């Protein structure tokens, strides 16, 4: 087995007196897609923030950790005063790599919008820019925190396919937090079903289907039933 990109053990994470994460072991292999599936507030976003290094106050350790990671937030979080291309190259101030940015704009399907301001973009388009901004630093891992929860169902499916395409093309591993069972199963190689507070990983579902997948695949439906059963047992639904 190749060396894991991420290998993280969170013994415990508390906010004031509530324990939100309890004994979680998380590994991510190169080019793998893993989803954390659970209800809002179960601590899965906190786990992602720990992985991203945004949350430093926890008990546990990062056994293996790549610096080459990027984060896509739930909202696009674009700087409203910068154009699309300036937003994508944001981490390099004004001397961003213009050719690379132009290529990313092309790849996320926003040709012609390089000089548009965020106020002129729809929610789905803004999220495309956010993904391009994540890819700009050529990461090996992309962390996504419910990235498509604010867009409509059709846009969401399109963005999911786009994300898989980009991960494939740039050989990126994805760690995704979501509360959408279909999304988790469609995208991932492994789905980690989270318990409610304090969160543990309740079950790991391996989705052994090659990409591109058919959303109507019977295996996905069977796995969905399994995941729903687990979530039900966890008193999440």
């Amino acid at each position, binding site marked *: 087995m190749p060396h894991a990109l991420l290998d993280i053990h969170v013994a415990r994470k508390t906010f004031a007196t509530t324990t939100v994460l309890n004994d979680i072991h998380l590994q991510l292999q190169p080019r793998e897609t893993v989803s954390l599936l659970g209800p809002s507030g179960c601590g899965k976003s906190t786990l992602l923030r720990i992985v991203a290094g*945004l949350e430093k106050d926890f008990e546990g350790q990062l056994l293996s950790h790549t610096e080459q990671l990027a984060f896509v937030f739930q909202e696009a*979080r674009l700087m409203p*005063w910068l154009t699309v291309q300036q937003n994508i190259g944001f981490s390099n101030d004004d001397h961003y790599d213009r050719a690379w940015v132009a290529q990313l704009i092309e790849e996320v399907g926003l040709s012609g919008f390089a000089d548009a301001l*965020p106020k002129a973009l729809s929610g789905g388009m803004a999220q495309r820019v956010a993904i391009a901004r994540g890819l700009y630093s050529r990461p090996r891992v992309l962390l996504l925190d419910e990235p498509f929860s604010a867009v409509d169902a059709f846009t969401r499916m399109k963005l999911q396919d786009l994300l898989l395409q980009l991960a494939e093309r740039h050989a990126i591993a994805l760690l995704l937090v979501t509360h959408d069972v279909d999304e988790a199963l469609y995208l991932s190689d492994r789905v980690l079903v989270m318990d409610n507070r304090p969160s543990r990983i309740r079950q790991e579902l391996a989705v052994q289907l090659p990409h591109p997948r058919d959303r109507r695949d019977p295996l996905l439906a069977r796995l969905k039933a399994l995941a729903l059963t687990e979530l039900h047992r966890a008193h999440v639904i």
Partner: protein
Amino acid sequence: MSSNSKDLSNPHLALSPADRTTLFDSDRWRLRLKGLALPVLIIVFLEIIVRIGWLPAYQMPAPSEIALTLGDLAEGALWKHISASLLRVLLGFAIGASLALVFAAWVGLSREAEAYLEPTFAGLRSIPSLAWVPLLLLWLGIDETSKVVLIAIGAFFPVYLNGVAAIRNIDRKLVEVGHMYGFSRRRLVRRILLPAALPGLFTGLRSGMSLAWMFLVAAELIAATRGLGYLLSDGRETSRPDIVLAAIIVLAVLGKLSDGLLAGLEKRFLAWRDTFNGTED
């Protein structure tokens, strides 16, 4: 932008880009003319009731009289007064506003600085600024320095308050993007905090400018030999309401011009804002 979008979407109007701009311009002029309607009406009304003697001319001179007085002044001392006042306002505003921006940045960006400075500023703010006048006259005499300092005090607080609020109202989520990239403090300020605070800073600068004019008049009414405030009190002492009104008009024009300048800068720097512009479309 959207005030004329209805016209543009009319299928019967096939418009070339050039036509669109003229339509846009004529639309804007129509709005301006609407704005002029009320003042013109008032002027005509005053002219009539003064002419037919309903108002005594020694109390309310006819608008045409005021225009004549303004013309006379323009040939003589008016420019001297305007340049004296303008210099004081600009100097006082520049000093007050830049100090305010420095302190606002300091307090806004540091909890420590806030703990040390904010109570003092809150205390100073609760002093009605005109209460400084006697003290400034005692300390600095009646020449330029005391006037400029008073104007600087007047301009300081709105700029400071809006500046601190602007920084503290920045969306934490945008700041987190900077943390994600490991931005240094300086880079965070330059790349995220400053641009994000700019709308609030402009609000502060504009209200600071209007207070600067107010304090100019206060300073010049009390002790001055030149300036528009002096013109006001001179008009009162010589029982010339036409001079007083002429000075008021000049003050209004100058205030509007300086605010227009800031508004123009604001529009230019904040074109990215996605805000309600008064029309629903």
